[in-house]
């Protein structure tokens, strides 16, 4: 049985690298990523699992890092925007489709869209895209552009093949 009764060193697999951090059992993954590792792409927004600004990918699935404890993330593969390296199709797609204004929500949307492409390597139906994007909020209301960026992501991934 894994036991964490006080602040201790934990090991996390993030963006293909192993990181050791000091964490309390009640520390959120979001806070550990940002404050201990300087991985600030995941943004604190509502901190309630509603806005999606803090979304990362855990074992290929989108996950709101404000609703996950850092200790729980041990043994799982975590991917943040920093791990996309600026070269993922969704990153170019967001630029091509002008899919951001203030940019605060962008990291979360990038991760949801990237996870969608992991789950659906070929573009799914519009209703699936809509359902996945409903997990995140853009207060600048760039929704149409973000939807275009998803289509562009699939065009770019097809071009790559």
């Amino acid at each position: 049985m894994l036991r964490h009764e006080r602040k201790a060193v934990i090991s996390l697999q993030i963006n293909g690298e192993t990181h050791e951090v000091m964490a309390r059992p009640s520390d959120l993954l979001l806070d550990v990523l940002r404050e201990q590792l300087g991985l600030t792409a995941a943004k604190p927004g509502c901190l309630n699992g509603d806005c999606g600004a803090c979304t990362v990918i855990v074992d290929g699935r989108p996950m709101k890092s404000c609703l996950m404890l850092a200790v729980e993330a041990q043994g799982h593969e975590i991917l943040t925007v920093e791990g996309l390296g600026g070269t993922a199709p969704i990153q170019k797609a967001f630029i091509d489709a002008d899919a951001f204004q203030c940019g605060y929500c962008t990291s979360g949307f990038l991760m949801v869209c990237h996870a969608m492409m992991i789950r659906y390597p070929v573009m799914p139906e519009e209703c699936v895209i809509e359902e996945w994007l409903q997990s995140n909020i853009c207060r600048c209301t760039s929704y149409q552009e973000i939807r275009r960026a998803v289509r562009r992501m699939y065009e770019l991934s097809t071009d790559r093949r």
Partner: protein
Amino acid sequence: MIPFNFAYYRPDTLKEAADIFSELQSQGKSAVYYAGGSEIISMSRTGSVHPDALIDIKSIPECGLLTVDKERLHIGSACTLSRIRESNLFALLGLACGRIADHTNQCRITLGGNLCGSIIYRETSLPLLLSDADVSLYGPQGERRIPFRSVFNIRMRLKPGEMMVQIHVPRWALSARHCHIKKTANEKIDYPLTSAAALWKDGILRIAFSGVCSYPFRSEQIESVLSDKTKTIAERVKQAAKMLPESAYAGVEGSGEYRLFLFENTLTELLEGGENAQT
């Protein structure tokens, strides 16, 4: 940030989980079983709950099981809503799972969390109330397996230290004729103003609701009224609306009157669709 400390345990077996619960209890500490954790984390952050310890059940094999055998579908309490939905093993439950929270949160919320949490809607209970499902429970006093309807009354009625391990759904329910209708104030992902799940067994309608009252329920009285084909659909619906187990729930998302209107509207939609499908 969660502004207090708690201990975190991740047992590998049911016995380890129950033992650590008992050990903590004997030390005067409060422990909660933890799977998806979205409610526990958000309520801890706001100070609504202050557990001394979390017991994470996700590594317990029985709690992660999702399999079907000759007689039943077995669903572990730590299975996420997205996993249940994507498995497509129980169509009606899959529809209910697909309308709880948003897609990303569905990858996190578990069946056990939805049923045992404090949010009143507990929409995964509806298909289980209709399908003669059993539930396996485990706690310091051992294991028991009982009909789901005998332990779910307004909410799960668990003994101290007891956890939900699995749900067992008979095969007839998995592909039986069904219907799921959820009405919300704004977005699809909102809490329900009225949510109805219907399942037909041997041509007989079974129906359960969430949102219209302050707790989910199945009413055999309402089922009987709705099945009375000597009356028009409008007459049946009006009569059913008088048989709610309590006054329609008045909440932030909608008044009692509005929920009742949607309840009638939902039943009409369901009966018109259902009866057309039968002819």
